[in-house]
Structures are given as C-alpha cells and as structure tokens.
C-alpha cells in the first residue's frame, strides 16, 4: 500500500505519513490517484476543445504542437 502512494508521489512520503496505518495510506493513495485521473480526463477534453476553438488558419499549427 505504501508502495502505491510512493509510486503516485514519485518519492517516499514524509515519515509521519509513511507511518500511518495501511488503510489510511491506501485511502490517501486513492485520493491522489483520483485527482491525477481527473486531471488526465480534463486534459483529453481540453486538447480536443482547443483544436475546435482556435481560428481555422491556426488549426494546423495547433494540431502539430498539441500532437493531436
């Protein structure tokens, strides 16, 4: 469980967090994972929306830069 939180953070959590019960660390990992997943979904939608919104002459540039 601690590995999951560490994995999401990309580093070891602070010592007091690491010492929390497994269940609490799991809850925390779940919240961080949910925030990260939400951010990913928001970016997917934003990329698509940006392409549709930039003026037509700029769309090729937008596609190239965004890789869309």
């Amino acid at each position, binding site marked *: 469980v601690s590995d999951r939180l560490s994995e999401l953070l990309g580093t070891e*959590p*602070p010592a007091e967090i690491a010492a929390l019960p497994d269940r609490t660390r799991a809850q925390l990992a779940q919240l961080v994972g949910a*925030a*990260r997943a939400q951010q990913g979904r928001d970016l997917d939608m934003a990329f698509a929306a*940006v392409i549709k919104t930039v003026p037509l002459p700029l769309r090729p540039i937008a596609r190239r*830069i965004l890789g869309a």
Partner: protein
Amino acid sequence: MVGSSVASEIEKLAHQLGVPAEQLACLDPISPEQLRELRAQIGDALFEAERHRFTRMALLSKAVPVAVAAKVSEAVLPPLLAARTAELFDPHRAVEMVARMSDAYLANVAAAMDPSRSPEVVVAIPPERVALVGRELARRREWVVMGAFVSFVSPAALRAAVQVLTGEQLLRISFVLDDTNRLAEISELLSDRQVDQILQAAMRHELWRELDELVGELGDKHADRLAERLDVAGAEVCSAVTAAHAAGRLGDVAYGRLAR
C-alpha cells in the same frame, strides 16, 4: 501559529485534492510541517504526471497571437489546466494573457493555482488586477487560495488587495496563510475599521480559533493595536472575548494580550 495549524493544512490539502476537508480527518495526527511537505509532493506529482501535455499547451499559447491564446484558454481550458500551464509561461507572456482574461476566469485560475510554483508570474500581475481578483475570491470564500497568494504578490498588490477586503475576510485569510512573514506588513495596512471588523467577526461568526492564532502571531505593536480597539469596541464584544476565554476557545496568551 497562524497558517501552521493542522486544521489549516488539512484544508489546503483537501482543496488540492478536490475533496471536503472532513474526508482527510484521518490526517489529524500528522504535524503541519509533514502535511505541508505532502502537499508539495502531491503538487509536484500531479504536474509531472502531465508535464509533456502542459508543455505542449504552453507552446501553443506562445505560437498564436496573445489575444487568440487568451480567448481560447478562457473558452475551453478548465482553470486547473490553465493554472498548471501558466507555470510554464514566461512572466511577460503571462501578464499579457492576464490582461485579456475576465476577472471571473482569472479567479477560477487563481483558485486552481499553486502560486509557489510560478512566483515570477504572480508578482508581475498588476495591483489593480490582484485587487479585483482578490475581491472575487473573497466573495467565493476562497480563503485558502488567498492565503497562498499573499506570500507572492508584490507589496503594491498586497496593499491594493487589503484595501478591498473586510476585517472578517482578512481574519479568515490570516488563519490559512502559507507564510506568516507578511503578517506585519498586512497589519500596517489595516484601517481602524478593519481592525474593529476583525473583533466583531470573531464574536459574530465564532472565529475564536482564527483570532487566537492571529493574536499569537502578531508582534507587540500590532497586538497592542487590537487591544486598543477592543477597549473601545463596546461591552458586547468585550463580554464575548471574556466568555470565549472562559470557555477555552480563546487561549490564555491571546486573551492576555487582548484584555490587558
């Protein structure tokens, strides 16, 4: 200590994760320092997870005319993504973008932003814009957001923002300040009316915890000013302060400094 309490750190963490603070009650035993460290780690992790896409978005913003970039951002970019993309802007470009965005959208972006990740951008925002956005954030009761920005806005912007806020709003912000180093600067900017509002707000809204921490953090000069205003605040406020102390809601130190 103002801004360093467990409660305020949990509020900030909850804000970052988009959950109610109650959901993080399991973190009550953790020290404020460790909660702050965790919050920084989460902020870094969320940014790094999508750095490549934030970079692309920032590149696009630079590649098109600033008016187009601002219009498209406001139309389709969720504030959280705009905030993280802004971390990759150079300050000059960011200020140009800010000038073209509405106050409401800018407030949304500010609410999603971690100003410590882009201090050069925050300090470059003109005072009048900071004041307008500050007023909007206060209307939304975004105290945690405002507390985080205090550390990074320019002195002129801080002055402009303090002028448009009430004592109650300033009291709530002081409780969640990320950095209390500017508390003296803020205190110097307060009008007597705002100081009076701080005392009245503590009474009317039961903000004793906030007042306790504020008084504990202030230097003697500014604590004395609060005490002087309490002297002329009227019986109702004085009685409320005494009752709060008797009930253990206002600590001995804060009470001793107020009721000299």
